[in-house]
């Protein structure tokens, strides 16, 4: 894959932000009051692989994730996982996509945030067939609706499940 080419293409999907070097690591802070969500970050971020485990961190608006997946598919990357994170304090759900390149052994993370009260994002299962199950699982756990997904019935949860256990306000 061509990292520069991917960066350029991703910038075009989020044209307002420049590429910057990764900021210095935040020191561990006591207590849970830390604002964990990074606000106002640039769309394309070079990350330190040794510290983070991935080389490129991309944040895009939900409507652009399919275009991003197509770019990464053309560059020869494979999909590793799709998952979610519940940022309940921000009222947002984050969808995280991990892509890996088998030749260059780099990992690209694409993330996108959707509002918690109406979580919707287009499916990338048309581009990466493997995303089908990962997105179904993410729908199971977080209730995120993947628009255009062929079948969002529960995959790992019971077939009549109407709850989403990984939401932070889920009570068993």
């Amino acid at each position, binding site marked *: 894959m061509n990292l520069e080419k991917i960066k350029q293409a991703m910038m075009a999907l989020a044209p307002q932000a420049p590429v910057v070097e990764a900021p210095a*690591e*935040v*020191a*561990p*802070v*006591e*207590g*849970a009051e*830390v604002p*964990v969500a990074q606000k106002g970050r640039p769309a394309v971020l070079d990350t330190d692989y*040794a*510290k*983070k*485990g*991935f080389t490129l961190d991309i944040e895009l608006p939900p409507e652009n994730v399919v275009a991003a997946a197509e770019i990464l598919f053309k560059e*020869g*990357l*494979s*999909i*590793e*996982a799709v*998952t979610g*994170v*519940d940022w309940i304090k921000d009222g947002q759900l984050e969808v*995280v996509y*991990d892509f*890996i390149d*088998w030749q260059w*052994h780099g*990992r690209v*993370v694409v993330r996108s945030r959707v509002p918690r009260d109406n979580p919707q994002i287009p499916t990338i299962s048309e581009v*990466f*067939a*493997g995303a*089908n*199950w990962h997105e179904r699982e993410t729908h199971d*756990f977080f209730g995120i609706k993947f628009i255009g997904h062929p079948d969002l019935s*529960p*995959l*790992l*949860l*019971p077939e009549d499940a109407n709850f989403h*256990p*990984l939401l932070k306000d889920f009570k068993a």
Partner: protein
Amino acid sequence: MSHLAQTQTQETFVLNLGPQHPATHGVLRVKLVMDGEYIVHAEPVLGYIHRMHEKMGENRTWAQFMPNTGRLDYLSALSYNFGYAAAVERAAGITVPERAEYIRVITTELNRISSHLLWFGAFVLDLGGFTPLLYAFDDREQILDLLESVTGSRLTYCYFRFGGVYNDIDDNFVPGSLAFIKRLRARMPMYHDLVTKNIILMKRLIGIGPISAEMCRRYGATGPVLRGSGVQFDVRKNEPYSVYPEFNFDIPVYHECDSMARYMVRMDEIEQSMRIIEQACNKLPEGPIMAEKAPKIIKPAPGDYYFSVEAARGSFGVRIVSDGTNTPYRLKLRSPTFSNLSLFAEASQGMLLADALALMGSLDLVIPEIDR
């Protein structure tokens, strides 16, 4: 659907495979739409052993989640210990002493051999050959004894700690491992003579169940499935971690893309794992087995971290999100067979049912790891 029988009436029927079927090795159900003996459509139904490990992770401290990692893939549990421990070490910035890394590699590779041996026996059992299973279990038993003496358990290991391992090896471990390798080396030609070169096995596997490299890429399949499709990707080489760069070993790759290729990759990997163990045993340094500065209470810096290891079935990834407290904010376990199985529906289309079972066996499924 080239093999599909061309019937006039296009009559199909639904066949349930599992959830209690011996060929699915656990509780996996596959809903098959059949046209005679041919599969029109296969739909794996998951979740029978789903335990929501990821939610459990959010309800306990970083260290308390370690036993859970031994219960995902119960056949190569140490790789999962490894992936989780290393992910948290990356997040918390803990450096592991060299001796601990060597012990981790030796035990993980022993575990990989035991996993491949069990797969070998069970796979041939799927194809109708009962005897090899008994031989494979005999060999595997030696590994379990060795690992039991060090880790304290035989199957669901919880041996790694953040910053090292829980227990140093005893005096018998290195000689025992080397003696075991000598024994297994002598037995591998027997396996190849009796099983690999068996005409029935060859007819069941060669040219059956093609999975192309392109299909692997679309589905994110890794491990022996990918290497049987001609792609040289192994996390230990391509994304090196721990002390793996210090050892000489090859990544077996076969280009035939069929069930036989996946079989051969695993058989060759046994030999490569033995090479790693030999080198590691001979170079094993003295020193501590736990990092002295490893904190008792782990509080990684806020942010997200990823760590990937090569488990026996492919790349196992741990994505953790920390909010700086002593419990994970989010813990994602990316299990290899989840992705490997997801291509089954496409790969099995138009196949004979018996061939599809051979294909499923060659994917080396472990259901608790798929369902998590």
